[in-house]
């Protein structure tokens, strides 16, 4: 492996000036689980690694109306956060299945999105949760939405010398549930064939028979039974990973559902539309037809899981069912 210097600034400003000083010769590193792999594979060969690990206070999760996540917060911290599990469930779903515990102990969520892999597990949960990314450079600070953050595979709006200082997730509307599904071939140490996140805000959290949701019947039967309830979808966001060059929102599909009564037919149509909006590719990991097919299946399932989380929050914090 190529040799490099390892610098450990004490403040963000010091980090910024080092980044500025070394320019292209430097690489910023958080947990290093992407950076070290890339160095070993000779995909990058920095002379200097600038680590954020020497700066105190970057590993905080705060909830003060909005959720604020520092740039050195690890996936494991998120996994253990009760507030994230309850209020921002899709994100908890993502870190539950990311890599392995060993990886989650060191890898950061900021690293995950800055690396900008189309398969990044936290990307679509952040999309549907409406996250904002705070960026700092020598020239100053700016905040961009996570949607405009990704530019292409491995590409973000970050300019040379800039770094991410915080992720901000607004408090969801009342009666909101969200869920993420990583479609993978193994249960650990895998990247998603497809990642699907859904966030749904309903008009209420009570229905006459919440137990329908525990039925083991097929999803369509449960949805048919639920249709009588006349639940209305106030807000919806659908995020798809590995379905396009960047994590994407299925905007058309969302439009079909927003403000409507939830029914099986409608959810099927929504899923179908999301599937058509996506631009999946054939890769060695999976073929496009299968990815499209799975969008159809999983958008519906994640919508169901989101609804379930609104209506049966206690029971479904750790759901074991497929939806």
């Amino acid at each position, binding site marked *: 492996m190529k040799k490099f210097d390892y610098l450990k600034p004490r403040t963000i400003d010091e980090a910024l000036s080092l980044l500025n000083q070394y320019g292209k010769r430097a690489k910023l590193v958080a947990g290093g689980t992407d950076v070290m792999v890339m160095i070993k594979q000779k995909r990058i060969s920095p002379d200097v690694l600038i680590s954020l690990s020497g700066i105190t206070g970057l590993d905080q999760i705060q909830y003060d109306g909005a959720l604020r996540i520092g740039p050195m917060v690890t996936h494991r911290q998120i996994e253990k956060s009760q507030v994230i599990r309850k209020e921002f469930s899709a994100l908890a779903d993502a870190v539950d299945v990311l890599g392995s515990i060993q990886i989650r102990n060191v890898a950061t969520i900021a690293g995950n999105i800055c690396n900008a892999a189309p398969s990044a597990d936290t990307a679509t949960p952040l999309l549907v949760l409406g996250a904002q990314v705070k960026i700092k450079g020598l020239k100053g600070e700016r905040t961009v939405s996570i949607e405009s953050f990704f530019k292409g595979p491995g590409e973000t709006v970050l300019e040379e010398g800039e770094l991410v200082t915080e992720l901000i997730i607004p408090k969801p509307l009342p009666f909101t549930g969200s869920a993420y599904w990583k479609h993978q071939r193994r249960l650990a140490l895998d990247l998603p064939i497809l990642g699907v996140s859904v966030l749904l805000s309903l008009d209420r959290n009570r229905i006459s028979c919440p137990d329908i949701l525990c039925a083991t019947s097929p999803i369509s039967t449960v949805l048919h039974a639920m249709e009588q309830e006349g639940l209305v979808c106030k807000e919806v966001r659908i995020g798809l990973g590995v379905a396009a060059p960047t994590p994407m929102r299925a905007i058309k599909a969302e439009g079909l559902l927003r403000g409507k009564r939830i029914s099986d037919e409608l959810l099927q149509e929504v899923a179908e539309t999301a599937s058509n909006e996506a631009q999946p590719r054939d890769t*060695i990991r*999976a073929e496009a037809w299968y990815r499209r097919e799975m969008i159809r299946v999983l958008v519906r399932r994640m919508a169901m899981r989101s609804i379930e989380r609104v209506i049966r929050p206690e029971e479904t914090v750790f759901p074991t069912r*497929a939806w």
Partner: protein
Amino acid sequence: MEEFINIGKRIPKTDAEEKVTGRAVYIHDLKVPGMLFGKILYSPHAHAKILNIDTSRAERLLGVKAILTGYNIPSIKFGFYKDNVPLKAGKVRSCRDEVAAVAATDPDIAEEALDLIRVDYEILPSVFDPEEAMKEGAPLVHDEHVGGKEKRPTNVLNLPWRLIAGDVDEARRQSAYVAEDRFRVTWVTHCCMGTSGCLAQFDLKNNLTIYSITQIPSLAQRDFTEALSAMGLQGKKVRVIKTMIGGGFGSKLDTYAFEYIAILLAHKTHKPVKIVFSREEEFFATSPRQPAIIDIAQGCTRDGRLTFRDVRMILDNGAYTSWGATTPSVMMMPISSLYKVPNVRYVAKCVYTNNTYSQAMRGYGNPQATFAIDSQIDILAEMAGIDPLDFRLRNANTPGEITPQNFKIITCGLRECIDAVAQKLDWRQNRGRRDGRGVGMASLIHVGGGARVYKSDGCGTIIKIDDFGTVNVFTGATDMGQGADTVIAQIVAEELGVRTEDVVVIHTDTDVCPWDVGAHASRTTFVAGNSALGAAKKVKQLLLEVAGQTLGESPENLDIRDRTVFSKRDPEKKSPLGKVLRAAHYTTGGRMVMAEYFYDPANENLDREFKGNLSVTYSYGTHGVEVEVDKETGQVKILKYVAAHDVGKAINPMLLEGQVYGGVAMGIGYALTERLISQNGKVMNPNFLDYKMLTAKDVPNVDPIVIETNDPFGPFGAKGIGEPGLVPTAPAIANAIYDALGVRIKDLPITPEKVLAALKQKTKPQ
């Protein structure tokens, strides 16, 4: 019932602490003074002429001590067919072909040097599909290779595998039901935890010491001795020393280019040279299991008795030929002898392609053949309207049987295995629901008493005992993680009346240890165990003689228990082993207490018709599985897994279960997730991210059931169990998926895509 002190006990592997604390010395840990690091440059093309190799820039790099190419090394040929050379000249035939090698003072420098070597190629037309490769006019992988009566250039190897017993055509005409199918299996690889490597070192007299992780120390010694001759070093000695081995699974049954390259570099530089594979190299530059295209037909009578089995197979040999090309000889075993089938025909061809060359892997052809056979048993049973459980019971092998390949079945617990699995799965209750949940089973036969592949199937043992009663066993066997050392220690300890921890097994050095044909064919416990037992018996006799003199008792009246020799007539007359030994050593005209024994089982080489009693005894087993399939995603979840094995006798139930757990995990990978993805001859997934070996989270609970049939020839009744654990896994799972959904997947791995596509096909309106 005899009371055992060591046999049948759950004794942890003797090297367990060393391994889990990181103290065990693997090839990766080995350092010797002055050592250089070797690295290999591989061809990026599957088939190309080498026009020019320019090493001049690499040679100038500081720290580079030697660069070899196919143009500046002596002609060393290796492999089963002697069609491979350490470094290629003229042309490359696959993407893993070695074209140059560097020795440098540092692995990074060696790597950098590789980047500086320029090779000019002219790309040649290539062939990746064995059926295409067999056609007239296909690109020739080895231009000089000729075959057939006409001795024409061809890609088909001159290995005419052909087994015929009875009259298949007549039996087919007589059959009430006939099933006919094509199955396909693809490359999977061993995934040894320890990557490959070796360290070669010459002394001043040009004798070679090679630190190695081979499964075949004695045969490797011969291969390397031949290589020395080719290098002009006739008569020089080769010493093979094994480090701790991080898994074998058949991957170390051949010698490989990297070993010859290390030898050549060490000789050129007069320095020790170590080559250790990266994980990526381990994936693309070692040899996987053979892919095969299997056309199979089986028939039965109206009441479900098998009438015939007719199998044609094409195996993708890849660009070179390893011992793996002989896997059809093992495939013959299930084809002729799994269940009672009177008429059998098997014809197989191994075909050169520009793919990676394949080789031995746990089961040695048996998993491929059994996938086809036992998947089709379910198909046939359904045609005959018989529950596959009853179908299997009706055709199950029995003790005393002589199979169409002339195997003499001594002990056989197949029925018991089938019954046990059916019971654990609640078969009658759970079968045939077609509601997304299903149960399936499949069985296996494997050699359990050695296998006479070579002229000898022997193994030697030497035992000596020191002044303190410690027993040193020098065995030819190889412990590559499976626990051979522990089992051998248990066997010797039992015979000598000591404890397993009193026995130290040494297997690591050809200068010290006796000869053995290798750790293959699930033979080690049986053959090395019998060999150790034979030596222990001789040593015991000597011990009793020596003790008899000091105790004034005739040896027949003496026995050993709990590290003490005692008189069976007068228990007061006794002496601790150490004391007996000291008496032997500190006496005028004293003696050593040691003995040697060579055990070569009474099995037979297959004759010209590929018939003969290949093994002294055979192991049987049945696996059963309950699955749940997600009909919308095609994903298969294993709810329950039962693995019943007739093992003769469990010498160490803990290690035995370990073999079964590991086998099943490997088998589930083979069935559902694992494959090397090859595109134009290049391995596209040379890493654990994209090669989907199961993780601890994916492996289901496995319920191992041990059926003991106490084989009269096995050491304390034991039969082989190393390979069987993964043989019937894939067909058992395929059968369960069929039971769950009514779709039959005939090619491995059974991915969600295949299941979903088959389901859609099935529900498509006609």
